C-alpha cells in the first residue's frame, strides 16, 4: 500500500472543519453558490499544494487569503460586479426571510468585490480589523474606511430594521 503524506490527515481535518465557513464567505463575496463552490474548491487545492510550508498558526489566514483572492479573480473574470441579475439560489424559509435575503444580496451586489470581502470578513467571519487588513493586504485604516462606506451604502439599501422577536442567532 502506498503512503499518504504524514500531514494529510491534518489537512483533511482542516477541510472538514472549515469548508462550511469558507463557503459562506465565498457566497457573500460572489453571490452565487456554484461560484462559491468553485472558489472554495480552488482555494483548498491551493492550500493542499502549499500545506507543508504553512505555519500551523497561520493556516486560517492563509486559507482566507487564498479564498478571497480567488474570489476576486473569479469576480473579475466573470464580470460579476452585479450578481443581482440572478435570483438567490434558494430562499430562506418563510416569506419574510426570503425578502430579507433578496434585499441583502441586492445591497451587497452594489458594492465592489473588495468591499463585499470587507463586509464578509468583518461581519460574517467576525474578524478584527487588523486581521481583515492582513487577509486583504490593505492598511488597517483602509479597512476601517471601506467598512464605514460599505455600511453606509448597505444601510441606505436595506430595509429599515424592525424588531424581530426570536431573531437572535447563536454564532
Amino acid at each position, binding site marked *: 500500500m502506498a*503512503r499518504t503524506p504524514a500531514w*494529510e490527515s491534518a489537512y483533511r481535518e482542516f477541510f472538514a472543519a472549515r469548508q462550511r465557513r469558507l463557503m459562506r464567505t465565498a457566497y457573500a463575496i460572489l453571490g452565487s453558490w456554484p461560484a462559491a463552490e468553485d472558489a472554495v474548491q480552488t482555494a483548498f487545492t491551493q492550500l493542499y499544494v502549499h500545506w507543508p510550508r504553512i505555519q500551523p498558526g497561520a493556516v486560517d489566514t492563509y486559507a482566507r487569503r487564498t479564498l478571497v483572492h480567488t474570489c476576486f479573480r473569479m469576480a473579475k473574470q466573470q464580470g460579476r460586479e452585479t450578481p443581482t441579475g440572478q435570483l*438567490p439560489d434558494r430562499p*430562506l424559509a418563510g416569506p419574510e426571510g426570503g425578502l430579507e435575503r433578496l434585499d441583502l*444580496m441586492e445591497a451587497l451586489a452594489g458594492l465592489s468585490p473588495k468591499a463585499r470581502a470587507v463586509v464578509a470578513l468583518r461581519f*460574517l467571519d467576525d474578524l478584527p480589523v487588523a486581521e481583515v487588513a492582513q487577509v486583504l493586504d490593505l492598511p488597517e485604516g483602509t479597512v476601517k474606511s471601506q467598512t464605514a462606506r460599505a455600511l453606509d451604502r448597505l444601510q441606505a439599501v436595506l430595509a429599515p430594521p424592525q424588531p424581530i422577536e426570536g431573531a437572535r442567532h447563536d454564532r
Partner: protein
Amino acid sequence: MTVEQLVRDQLDRATQDIVGGPDLTTTIRDGRRRRRASRAGVAVAAVAVLGLGAVGARAALAGGDAGVVAHDAPVADAAPVAPAPAAPTDFVPGTDVDDSMSAVVAELLPELPAPDDVYPSDGQTAGPLPDTEFARAQDWQAAYTTDAGGALVMMGSPEELGGWRCSDCGAQQVAGGTLYRETYSTDGGQTWWFGTYFVGDDGHFVNAFESVQAPDEQAATSKRVLADNDIEALVQDPRLTF
C-alpha cells in the same frame, strides 16, 4: 438595532443554507498532482536555464554576438550544436548519491544525455535543497533535456513527509512494491507528462517523468523518446535508493 448588527444578522441568515461544497477527494487528487508538477517544474526550469547556457556557448564558439542569440530558442535546437559549458562531474560535493543515481539512469536509459542537474530535495522546501544540506535530503532528483522536452527522475526515502500515493493511477503489483502509471497535462494542455512511479514495500519510491511539449496526448505520445519498458525497469532498480 445598529446597521452593524443588522448586517451581521442578515449575513448570518443569508449564508446559513449552504448549497454544494468542495469535494475533498477531488481537492486532494488535484493538490497531489499540482505538487508533483510544481516540484517537477523546478527541475524543468533548471533545465531551461542550463539550456540557455548552451545557446550562449554556441554563440561564443562560433564567434557570434551573444546579444543576437534568441534566448527563447528551443533547448533541443541548441544542445546538439555545441556542448553545454563544462558540466561539473560532481553535482553535489561531499556525497556520491548524485553520481550513483546518474550512473544508473545512464545505464538503463541510454537515450538520455548527461543530466542537466542532480540535486537533493525534500517534501517541504520549494525547489532543491542547498548542496551543503544534502544530508537532510528526503529525495534526490535528476533532470534531463530531451529532444521532445525533458525527463525527471526522483528517488525518495521512506521518511519523506511528502510521500504519496496515486489513487487514480493505473496500479500493478510487482516484485518488491507497486508500479503506477499516469499521464496528465499542465500549462493548459501544452505540456504532457508521462509518469511512472514505483513505491517499494519499504516505502521508498522512485518516480520518473517524461515531459513532452505537444498540443494533445496523441501527439505527445508519438514524440516520446523513452520506452515504457525501460522506464519501468529503471524505477524498479534496487540501486536507486540512498
